[in-house]
Every structure is written in C-alpha cells, then in structure tokens.
C-alpha cells in the first residue's frame, strides 16, 4: 500500500507537471476570447516549451555559475511544492514529509534563487525585477502564512491532507474565518503568480514588469525551466484554493472511481478558476508598483481578520 501511495504522489506530481501548461493555455484562450480575439490553442504553452528546450541557450559573459544552476533549483522547488499539495486524493504521504509551512518555504526557496539569478548578469533590469519581486513577496508571504494558519488552527494540523479531511468531515459550516482567509489567499495568489493587477505576464515594458525582468537574460532550456516553474506556481495556487476551500470531490481512498471523480472535480474547479482569473485580468488594470503594497496589506489584513475571527468567534471559550 505504501509503495502504491508513493506512486500516487508521483502521479500527482506528473499531473501537475503536465497540467500546468494547459491551465496557462486555457487562461490565455479565455482571455483572448473575452478580448474578441480568436487566441492560440490551449496547447500552445506545450509547443513553446518544446521549442525552447530545443534551442541553444545563451549565457552572458558576466554570468556566474549560479545563473546556470538557478533554473534547476527554481524548477525543483516549484515541483516539490506542487508534490505536497493534494491534487486528487487527501491520502498522499507527501503531505507528511512537508506540511504547509514547508510548502511556503519551498516557494520562498524558488523565489530566492529566481531573484538572485536576476541580479547575476549585472544589468539594471534584473536588479529592478529582483528588488520588486522581493518587495511583493515580503508583503505576500506573511499574508499567505496567516491564511494558512487559520486553516491549521481550525484543523489543529498543518498537514494539508488533514486540513482537507477536517474540512470534509467537520460539516460544511460557513465559517467567516474561511471566507476571510480565502479572500486573502486569492489576493496573494494573484500577486505571487505575477498576474494583473500586480504584475503583467504579457508585458516587457520596463516600468511595469517584475517577473519578466528577472528572467530577461534567460534563453533556451533555462528559460523553459523558468517558464515551466512559473506555470507550476499558477496551478499550485489554483489547486490550493480549489481543494482546500472547495474540497468537494477530492478522493479519500485509492479506488479508481474516487480517483477518477477527483480528477474530474479538480479539472472543473481549475477551469472555473481560470475563467475567473481571465475575467479579472480583463476588467482590471495594472496598478502602479507602489499600490501593490497596499493591495497586499489588504490581503494581510483579510488573513489576520480571518485568524482573529476564528479565535474569537469560532473556537469558543
């Protein structure tokens, strides 16, 4: 059974790995339809990745060995973070290896090396991107941890599998704390995955970009890994929101029907989240950089409200 459950972990990681580009393609497609464009096929991100993997990578003369190691570390950290999140089933042994705080740690590890890689070549662009990225993450990470703590304190566990199990068994009471935590986490997800209104994934305008500025010097397979890691991150936040706050449908055993319905449920939830993201990106405009901290302070306050309302209202004296 244990071997089988570890195989399930590998299967979930593989689903993340190969599903993430599809999710990005889906968001792009919906967005272009909303903007009255025909848009590329949702499979386009796969083609882009394949093309990049086949290309010769260029590395600046001024780059240090860290520049070439960073894509692998960023990618590995993103993939490990994904492996920890229950995608199809809550009974994943990987949730015991690394709990939700470690998950946040993985994301921070990837970001640390991403920002370092941005500063490595020694151009102004990379440093600018790194500086902004670290500002955004410094404000977003505490908000995310607080949102996560709300869940963990309710379930008395930081194990994501247990948290979701607790959600499913504990009755689906409408908790104000969850609502606040959900809103906080959504705002964090928007900021951390570099979406409008904090960052724009489709721009190369120097005044506005954050993530793209850091990976400006990358090409070939290095760029492919960086892009893939970013796509993984988007899917990770999507699954986190979908499976933790709306856990219906997730498998709690390894039976094929349960797993199949789990896959179907998570695919539907992600598709809806993708539509929501595309809509919000269409109707919102990008903020100035110094509005981003206010945005994230709001996320922090929401998460803090969630935690306090849990403590004061829900856990009782």
């Amino acid at each position: 059974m244990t071997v089988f459950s570890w195989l399930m972990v590998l299967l979930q990681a593989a689903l993340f790995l190969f599903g993430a580009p599809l999710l990005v393609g889906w968001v792009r497609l919906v967005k272009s339809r909303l903007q009255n464009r025909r848009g590329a096929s949702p499979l386009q991100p796969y083609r882009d990745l394949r093309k990049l993997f086949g290309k010769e990578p260029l590395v600046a003369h001024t780059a240090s060995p860290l520049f070439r190691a960073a894509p692998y570390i960023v990618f590995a950290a993103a993939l490990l973070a994904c492996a920890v999140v229950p995608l199809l089933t809550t009974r994943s042994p990987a949730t015991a290896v690394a709990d939700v705080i470690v998950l946040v740690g993985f994301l921070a590890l990837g970001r640390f090396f991403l920002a370092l890689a941005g500063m490595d070549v020694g151009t102004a662009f990379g440093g600018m991107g790194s500086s902004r990225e670290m500002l955004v993450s410094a404000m977003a990470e505490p908000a995310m941890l607080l949102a996560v703590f709300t869940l963990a304190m309710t379930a008395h566990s930081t194990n994501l599998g247990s948290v979701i199990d607790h959600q499913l068994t504990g009755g689906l009471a409408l908790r104000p704390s969850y609502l606040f935590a959900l809103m906080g986490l959504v705002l964090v997800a928007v900021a951390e995955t570099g979406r409008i209104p904090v960052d724009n994934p489709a721009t190369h305008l120097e005044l506005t970009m954050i993530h793209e500025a850091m990976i400006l010097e990358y090409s070939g397979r290095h760029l492919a890994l960086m892009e893939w890691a970013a796509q993984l991150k988007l899917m990770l936040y999507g699954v986190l929101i979908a499976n933790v706050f709306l856990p219906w449908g997730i498998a709690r055993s390894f039976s094929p029907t349960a797993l199949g319905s789990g896959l179907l449920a998570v695919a539907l939830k992600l598709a809806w989240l993708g539509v929501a993201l595309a809509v919000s990106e269409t109707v919102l405009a990008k903020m100035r950089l110094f509005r981003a901290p206010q945005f994230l302070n709001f996320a922090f306050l929401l998460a803090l409200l969630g935690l306090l309302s849990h403590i004061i209202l829900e856990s009782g004296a």
Partner: protein
Amino acid sequence: MTHGLPLSLGLAYVALLGVLGSVLVAFVSDRGAAFKMAMFVLLGVSGGAAVLAGLAALASPEAAAAQLPAGLPWLAWRLRLDALAGFFLLVIGLVVLAVSVYGPGYVRDFEHGADPLPVLGAFTGLFVLGMMLVVLADDAFLFMVSWELMSLSSYFLVTFQHDHAANRRAAFLYLLMAHIGALSILLGYGVLAGFGDGFAFDAMRAAELSPFWASVAFGLAFFGFGMKAGLVPMHAWLPEAHPAAPSHVSALMSGVMLKVAVYGFIRFTFDLVGQLHWQWGVAVLAIGSVSALMGVLYALMQHDLKRLLAYHSVENIGIIFIGLGLGLIFLATGHRVAGVLGVIAALYHTLNHALFKSLLFLGAGAILHSCHERDLERMGGLLRRMPWTGLFFLIGCISISALPPFNGFVSEWLTFQTALQAWLLEGGVLRSVIPIAAAVLALTGALAAACFVKVYGVAFLGRARTRRVRRARGVSRGMRIAQGYLAALCLLAGVFPTTLLGWLDAVPESLLGRGLTQATAHGWLWLTPIAPETASYSAPVVILALAAVWWLSATLLRRGKAREARRCDPWGCGFSNGLPTPRMQYSATAFAQPIRRVFGPLFHIDQQVEESGGVQRFRLHVSDRAWGLFYLPVAKAVQAASRRVTRLQSGSIRVYLGWSLATLLVLLWVVSS
C-alpha cells in the same frame, strides 16, 4: 564527589585551561610564527574540549558540580555543568573552533600594522574564558565576575582598531551599555539572594518569592540580559560595536556572546526564579517580535556589510525571544508540551544563529581581508573571484533566510508550530496575541530573505563596482576550512533536525522536568513536534527529492538535441556602444528603496539633493529611530542633571567644607536612627 571527576566537567577544565594557555602564549605571539600558531592551536583545543564537554553534559542525566579553590573566603567559586550549561558550552565551542582555524590567516593583516597582535590574542582568549565561566558558574558571584570579564575584554576587542574615532565611540557606548545591563542583572540577583540564603544558585532556587518580587527580579534580569542580547530598544550599541571589532571577534560577539546573554536569561527565568507568570511571557513575546521586525528592517537599510549582519543579530535574537516568550506563556498556563516546544525552538534557533551568523561574519571578514572593503556599494562579482567563500556565504544566506532544507528553517518551523498551539489557551487576549506574533515572524522571515538577496546579489553576483574588488583574491586555506566547517554544520543541522533535537531534549528534561520525547519518537527521518497527525517534517526526504529533481531535469535536458550553452554579451538595454557599465547595476540602496518607502515611517530618513557648482548630489542617510526616542532623552537628562550638580562647584573651600559637614551630619543621623 566520591567517584572522581565526571567526564563532562573534566573536559570543561581542559577547555578552560586551553584558553588560559592561549592567553599566556598570546603575550609572546609576536615573537614568531610558532607562538602565533600555538596561540590558535590552544584556542582550538579549548573549543574542541568545550564541544565534547557540552556533548557529554547533554548525554549524562546528572549535573556535574565542583568547587574551585578561589573566590571569597565564605563563598568559593562553584561550577556546575548541567544540560543547559552543556548546550551553551557546545555552542561556544563550535564557534571558537571555527575561529581558531580562521584566525591565523585573518590576523596576518594585523601583524605588520600598528595594532599589536598580543593584545588581540590575549583579549580574545580572556573573552572566550569569560564566556565559558559565565556558563559554568553556579553562584551569582562567579557569574558576575565572569560576566564582567567577558564584557571588559570584549570592550578592548571593540576598541582594538582605535585609530578610527568611530570605533572608540562605539566601544565607549558598548562599555556604558554593558555596565548598565550588568548593574540591572546584579540587582536582579540581589533580589533573589535577599529572599534566598546567599549567592549560590541552589539557595536562589530554594527561595520563595512573592509574585511582586519575582516580577521585579524578572524585570531586572530581562532588562539586563536583554540589553546584552541586543533587544529593541536596548540594541543601539550592537550595530556600532560588533562591526568595529576584527571580523573573527565579530563572529564570536554576534555568534556567541549574545547567546551567553540568552543563557543568562534562561537560567534566571526558567531555573532560578521558579514560579512563572504568563504576563512575563507576553512581555518577552512583544519585545521579541518588535526586535525581530525592527532588526530586519534596519538591516535592509544598511550597506555596510558588517553593520547589516549586526542588525540581523538583533532580528535573530528577537526570534529566539519569541520562542522563549511562547514557552513562558505555555508553561505558565500549564501547557507543558507546547511550552517545552517553545523553549526547544528557541534553543534550536540559538544554535542555528551561532552557526550561520559566525559563518556570515567570517565570510565578511574574508571579503574585508582580500579587498579591504565593507561597503556593499563597492562590491560585486565576488563569486567568481572567491568561489569558495561565495559558496559558503550563499549557504549562510539561505540558512539565515529560513529556507528549507537548511537549519534556519527548522527552528522557525518549530516556532510556528508552537504558535499554532495557541488554541490550547483560555483567554481570548492570549489567543490573539500569539498569532500576531506569528505574523510578525512571517514578515520578518520574508524580509530577511529580501535582505540576503540584496547582500548576495550585490556583493557576490553581477560585476565588480571598483578596481580593488575586481582584483580580489581567494583567502588562505584555514579561512576557507573554517567557513566550510560552519557551512557543513548549517546543512547538517538542517537535514538531521530529529537527531539534534534528541540531544537538545536533555535541556528541558533537566530544567523543566519534561522532554519532548514525542518529537523524536518516529525515527530520525521524521520530526513530529506535537504528534504525527498535527505536523511533521522530513528534512532528509526533502533534500533527497530536491536533489533528485535537479539531477533528473539536468540529465534529461542534457540529452537529446539540446546543445551546450553559448556565451554572449548581456542585453545592452538599447545602448549602442556595447555593454552596460557596472555602475548601471542595481545598488544595495536601490534594491532596498521600495521597502524603505513602504516602511518609511519606521525609519529616520534624511535625504536631500545638494547642488554645488552645477552638479547635483543626492544624499541619503537612514538612522535608527531608537536614538531619538530612547537614548538622546536619557543623555539629555543626564546632562541637565549634571549641570544642576555643577552649581555645587562654587570654587570656595568654605562651601566645600560646609557640604562635607552636612554630609557627615546626615550620615550620622542615618546611622544613629
């Protein structure tokens, strides 16, 4: 002691004798390379013996006690080596060992300078001796004597390069603050000794204090030890004094001396006072949170590498005190498991901070040694000039930024796990205070990562900003080995937390009567602080998975049609005449600018544009608000008071005689009544 000397105490004696020998040899260390070597070898022997003594003390269930044939006639110097003392002896030993390997290469700079090597060696030895004796002391008298030995000898180390006025000023400030702190500690011991019977710690343990006097004693001790540890707002001396000393001494001061203050606080609060009160825990938690946050924010604003690291010590001491505060709250309200977990988290962070902060200070020393530069704004591209130092410094940066799978992450994880037990508590206030502290800790961790991206990115990556830095050379083998050893310990402490926790467990077991057995109950692979279903972390699996993904992706990508990377010029930002110059890189100040703007109200920012001769210059100075808020008022009050007192100085001898007579009369009245 009927069955002879216990092993742990015997090794501790070796450590004390070794460092004493090092002090003696230091006086002749300028007579030849052999003496200099002997000085450091003896220091290393002492460090190694201290490590072994600490391990032996952690392994043995009983505390070892002894009396030294010294001290006052009615109060012999008493030593006692229990698990707590053993743990701190271990921390001291680990860092002293690194410093003794690092020292010979580093002090080469001073051999031909005006600053005498014997002075440096002797005071370094006395400093280490003082720290070891503080930890071993079993009565308040020896404790205070060693405490003063530690403070005074480190004063001479801070003022070692005394030809800089800034260093003299820093040293004076340090001396002043150290003594205000020592006075407060002395008064704290005085309260305990007054209720107990004498200065021995045993007597103080037996003392029955009323809650009021216990709180007075605790407050005095918290103030005194907190001042030495550098808690906000008593921290202002720390970023001045620590960078002023030679780098290997900075490593000792930041890595170890602050920990000795933590030791004093733990010994006083958890061992001597006895009954704990949760209000103390709230105070410690609040001060710890403020220290952590302010420490990291001020660190972000620095561009002097050693000053920046010193501010990070404020931050990390804050994190340690967050753990201790949580421990106090839980222990005082009867939740022993969570309380022990908080104390363990604090101890773990103590060890971690000693390791990575020493590593970073030794790295800063290596940079200083090879390019005589402390200012980040002039560095750049050092990774290619000093690859080993660059690698080890990176490990230090990852560790201090609390990223998995290194050691800083483990202790922050444990602290978070303690905070998440807040649901156990009764009162709504306590329940909501603790999550706010956890939020502050999360913010601190994220800001620390930002700060070390800045440090590493500006110093080691990119391109050299000055010629001196462009020509930097690698450092000697000893200096590299010392850094590598600390980096390896950082990794080990991060990957095998369960094993280490099993050793640490002896401390709360002997101190609080309860260990954290469930944390290590599931084998070395699993760390389960409360219970496996509550939280678990398996660092070995994490690092294996990380390595496996890295290796797999690298090998898969190297196969197939992917080709070798080609070198080219970086993108020139649209400039037609070739490469962007190194001056176009983001500087440390520029990197921190968004954060400076967001947290602006917390800093004292002085920025202006000066125009002279058609050239505009931008000047920016960020200073500590604590100065204006806490120090200058005190200094002004002291000055005003002394100005009043000078009115007594009339210059006429009759008035002076009159004052003397009045004093005599008052004294006689006091004595007679």
